[in-house]
């Protein structure tokens, strides 16, 4: 099988490579590294800079940052990925129907979304998490719901724009049903916006998880997640900047990889970019 041209660009290759690497770490790290390596404290080496014993340094409790960041990958990626997936699953039909139907349907749906939007996403997630109780799945639900309104809004705007295009009107007079119009004519044309928004949302979801953890509602210490590590590093930024840099770099690499991957995916789906590279 030949790779689509869009993935054969340097950007596409790096993006795909990063995404695969991160997924591998997320799956394999907990299998290969004993869980307590990430929580083992070494009080004599607190806030140690990178050394041979601790290649990426240690945190305020002398825990090895390399193991923590590797073992935190799964939690962070799972929570962020599942939450964003959830917000797409809810937000996509909401936005599509709202933008396509217009009128009263649009008004009712969007006022609902506006209500959600009027709460800060983190506060919303906090409330949901507090009501449902703190555990992994509820964190996913909380972040997923909190992120839904943004996505629904963006998809609605795009659907509204695309629904007015002559090709959609032409497809309508070609006898297409509403569902086919939405799925075959509108959805492919708003995919680029969905892909871009999703990759951005993933980054924010990783950080949102940190916010919840910080308040005791997400990942519970001593377990590791990237967000929790960034949160914990705040007080030591002046003395031990690596405590923030290590998980920060992990988030940055993930977002970068996803962005490049997302761009390549978008190009691969777009027939206009075929042949050009």
């Amino acid at each position, binding site marked *: 099988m030949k790779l689509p041209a869009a993935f054969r660009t340097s950007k596409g290759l790096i993006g795909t490579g990063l995404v695969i690497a991160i997924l591998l770490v997320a799956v394999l790290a907990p299998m290969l590294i004993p869980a307590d390596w990430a929580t083992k404290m070494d009080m004599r080496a607190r806030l140690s800079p990178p050394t041979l014993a601790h290649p990426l340094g240690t945190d305020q409790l002398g825990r090895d940052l390399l193991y923590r960041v590797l073992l935190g990958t799964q939690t962070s990626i799972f929570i962020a990925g599942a939450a964003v997936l959830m917000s797409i699953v809810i937000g996509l039909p909401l936005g599509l129907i709202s933008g396509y139907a217009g009128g009263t349907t649009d008004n009712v749906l969007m006022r609902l979304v506006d209500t959600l939007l009027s709460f800060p996403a983190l506060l919303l997630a906090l409330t949901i998490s507090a009501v449902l109780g703190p555990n992994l799945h509820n964190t996913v639900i909380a972040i997923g719901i909190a992120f839904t309104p943004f996505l629904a809004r963006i998809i609605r705007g795009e659907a509204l724009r695309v629904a007015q*295009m002559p090709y959609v009107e*032409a*497809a309508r*007079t*070609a006898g297409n049903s509403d569902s086919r119009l939405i799925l075959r004519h509108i959805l492919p044309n708003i995919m680029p916006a969905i892909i871009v928004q999703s990759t951005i949302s993933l980054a924010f979801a990783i950080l949102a998880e940190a916010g919840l953890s910080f308040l005791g509602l997400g990942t519970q210490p001593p377990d590791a997640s990237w967000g929790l590590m960034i949160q914990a590093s705040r007080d030591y930024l002046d003395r031990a900047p690596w405590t923030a840099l290590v998980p920060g770099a992990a988030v940055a690499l993930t977002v970068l990889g996803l962005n490049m991957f997302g761009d390549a995916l978008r190009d691969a789906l*777009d027939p*206009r970019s075929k042949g050009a590279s």
Partner: protein
Amino acid sequence: MPDGQTPLVSIENLRVEFQGEDGPIVGVEDVSFSIAPGETVCVVGESGSGKSVTSLSLMRLVEFGGGRIVDGRLEFARDGGVVDVAQADPDTMQAIRGNEIGMIFQEPMTSLNPVFTIERQMTDGLRMHRGLSAEAARARALELLRQVRIPEPERRLKQYPHELSGGMRQRVVIAMAMACEPRLLIADEPTTALDVTIQAEILSLINRLKRETGMAVLFITHDMAVVAQVADRVVVMYRGNLVEEGPVQEIFAHPKEPYTRALLAAVPRLGEMRGKSAPEPLRLVGEDEHRLTPTAPAERGPLLEVSHLTTRFPVKGGLFRRTVANVHAVEDVSFVINRGETLALVGESGCGKSSCGRSILRLSQPTSGTVLLDKRDILGLNDRDLRRAWADMQMVFQDPFASLNPYMRLSEQVAEPLTNYGLARGSEVQDRVAGLFDRVQLPRSFMSRFPHELSGGQRQRVAIARALAVRPKLIIADEAVSALDVSVQAQVLNLMMELQAELDISFLFISHDMAVVERVSHRVGVMYRGRLVEIGDRAQVMESPQHAYTRSLLSAVPIADPARRTIGEDMNFRPIPSPVFPIGHEAAPSVYEEVAPGHLVLSTAFD
């Protein structure tokens, strides 16, 4: 060029390249021509011919679009001697741009900055190039606005661009270009985005300014009719090369090159259909003469009967987005289209012709009236029955780049109506699609392509194939050829006429182009401010127009014949008033007077 005169501009062997993904792309290959002082040179060509690139090179603006002047000289005669613009340093260029060479761009909506007042935009250049004080610059701006005949110039200075109409804005742009009394005015498609009456005003304005100031004009256009009206000399370009150059009478009367001949043959000329009863295909160079021609339809009864059709769009405003006024887009319009007949609806932008077409299909919901297609009441249908009714009437849209789904293969898009209406199934579908591609003269290899791989004209053929798939009785063509180059436009028009002759389709042909309308239609309806002001046989409306608006519209149309210059030096048309009326406004019914059998003229006065 007259002998013994130093040219103002002399372009020699100009070559411009753009950086493409796979190496340089040539925009202009090898072009040489000159412009004498006080002369109007028209550069004419179809899209991609390099005509705009040539004019932008003269200002060195081409560099801002990623282009590079690779070779050639661009000599411009200044006071202090001749300067090669291609080699000039940035300071010299700044002194030349807007000062010695003025420029008018195509789109008056975007060539003015929306956040500055007219005064600010006009005085900037004056203060910069001429070092005028704020007071003096303001006085000069006023003088310029008077020169371009803008009503109430004092008030205009304080206004922002969005407060002015398109024609007014283009006058401001011209006034700005004229501000420093340039010796050369470059006009790049200055009237393409404008209505025909405003086009006539702007052309006459440029003609007058040219005579008064003695400046030379480099006029870029794709429109042969405009060329015939304004040019002294013509430069014909094709794919980055100069094809032919000569005095305008010479080019039109005795074109030497095959390309020029083909270009001229493709242009419909208003008035050339005089004395003919039926539409006639354009004779294209290099095509066989055996074409099916539509004949005058025998009286075979009406297909589409539209009566008292009214469409209004609410204008929402205020906190609760309540309706605060109504746009009266279509106001009490009635007409009939017979089987196998083409009715053209003409009018300027905002006259309601498109809304009328869309209302018949119910793509816009009409407010009242009746539409009968084959005696079936379209406006009374529910959604399901309306969908079925579309199998009898289809639409071809204006913009070929927006009317095909970029994510779907062409065969799939043409097949959609076939499968949706159950007209074919299984392998039969692909056969039918292939047949339709043959029918619109597209190679079958295009079937598996995506829209972006086709040119505008080819896409429009696909759109026609899709419309034909259901074997409709009526096709509404909404400005279906106005986005196309003239030669492609001619081919698509011929195709439509051929299809009509062969398949007995009726057309509602919506267009702003009187010359095209004259060519293709059996009957013509003229729309103005939402109403049909005149309707009748093509000969009746085009040759003996009765309504004042029809007359002024026809007088504004440029004719592609330099021997018949109709653009005077001072043309002024009444601007079209706003179609927005307060809620509850009672529009008077349209009353018609039958001046000849079948020739109706609106006698209701506009308020």
